[in-house]
């Protein structure tokens, strides 16, 4: 279970995330949506212990990420800023992680199989296409077979085939009972994939709940525009 509790992250005067409070339902796919610069990545980096909140908390099973005894077995993460050592092969990159997490090396080959990257296991990641890197990042997130997946813009840079693959892949993971939190600034991209949505704008919550209730008859984009305008009007 993931919860944001009045999470605030300021860079100088600007609040990238402002008093964000939300809970993510277990066993569902939650879309974490908002335009560029809304604060999605920042909130996720606070959740994963990569950035420290200015105020508030972001918790996993009631504890900060840094307190998890075996984090990779509980949470798998794909971040937009995540990189792989270009001089190492895909397999070597994963074996650095399995060693750190105390996972068997055989698991590295397994996850490469799962993301259909086995053929490139022994290739240096330098020559990897964006799609291959994204798959490798997913593979790394799956190493510990975690119940929770946190994905920041996993569809970024993928072609339509890649996005279709990703959608069905996320669906498969969710059907296995995992909790998935996936961010995107492409609203349409996630419309048919997610169960719940959290929309944020300028670091603040706009709306959260099951997508069916929020979108109603229109599209996600229409709902988003309507809701952000409403939020602005209320603010005034």
């Amino acid at each position: 279970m993931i919860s944001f509790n009045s999470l605030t992250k300021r860079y100088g005067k600007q609040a990238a995330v402002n008093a964000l409070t939300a809970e993510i339902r277990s066993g569902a796919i939650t879309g974490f949506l908002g335009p560029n610069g809304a604060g999605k990545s920042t909130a996720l980096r606070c959740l994963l212990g990569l950035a420290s909140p200015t105020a508030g908390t972001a918790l996993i099973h009631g504890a900060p990420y840094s307190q998890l005894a075996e984090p990779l077995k509980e949470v798998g993460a794909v971040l937009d800023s995540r990189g792989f050592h270009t001089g190492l092969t895909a397999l070597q990159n994963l074996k650095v992680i399995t060693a750190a997490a105390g996972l068997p090396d055989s698991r590295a080959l397994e996850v490469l199989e799962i993301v259909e990257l086995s053929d490139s296991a022994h290739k240096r990641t330098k020559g990897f296409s964006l799609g291959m890197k994204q798959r490798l990042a997913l593979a790394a997130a799956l190493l510990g077979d975690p119940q929770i997946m946190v994905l920041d813009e996993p569809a970024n840079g993928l072609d339509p085939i890649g996005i279709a693959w990703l959608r069905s892949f996320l669906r498969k993971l969710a059907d296995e009972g995992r909790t998935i939190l996936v961010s995107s600034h492409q609203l349409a991209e996630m419309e048919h994939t997610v169960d719940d949505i959290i929309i944020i704008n300028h670091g603040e919550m706009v709306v959260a709940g099951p997508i069916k209730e929020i979108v109603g008859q229109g599209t996600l984009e229409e709902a988003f525009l309507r809701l952000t305008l409403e939020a602005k009007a209320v603010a005034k």
Partner: protein
Amino acid sequence: MKLFKSEFRKLIYSRTTYGLLLAAIGLASLTSGVLPYVFSKQLNPMGTSALTQQAVVDTVYGKAAGAYLFAIILGVILMAGEFRQGTAVATFLAAPKRGHVFLAKVSIAALAGAVLQLIASGIAMVVAHTALGFYPEAVAPSDTAYLDTILASVISGAVLAVVGVAVGTLIRNQMLGTLVAILWLNLIEPIMILVFPDGAKWWATGAISGILNLHVSVGRNGVTTANYLEPWQASLLLLGYGAVISLISFATTLRRDVD
């Protein structure tokens, strides 16, 4: 233990490691191979070759420990490389307690720096021995010359690699960190030592010379090792520097946000 294994893999999987090792071997061997020729052309007041002085021969061997620059660069790359490649995210996701990561990295860096210097100085001493063989006037080195050189190479390699990790933590930018290390050892310290010769022993390079235990009384350019620290003092000083800069980087920057 897990993190040590992970850091060890990062070290041995990366080709940069082997590049730096080759560079260290090359530099140390080149210096040790060329110095006998240089010294053979320098004449003592009596008109004999400088190689007839034991301190000079010791210096030739001592230079075999001179590739410590590559140990510090290795340390910088081990840490700053994580930010350059973006693997810092994966590293801290697997081990969110950053102090543990730092400890593992520092330990592996120390080991790697020591081994790198040991190999480089070992090969360079063989080169020095071979090169000195071409000059019949060259005297034998002092009894402790080999051991002093090995000691200086291992300690300087280990400590400077740790310093490199600390610099990489403080400066996160690999190019900048490497540049700072190079400038420090090859420009700032030599200039400071030139300007304040009495303070030479307190600098990192001065401490390494101290460990080498050379007894150059009056060199050509007025360099004297007479007031250098005893090897054990110099070793402690160097270790102290490594510990202090590690603590500083650990306390000030390690916890900074990772993008």
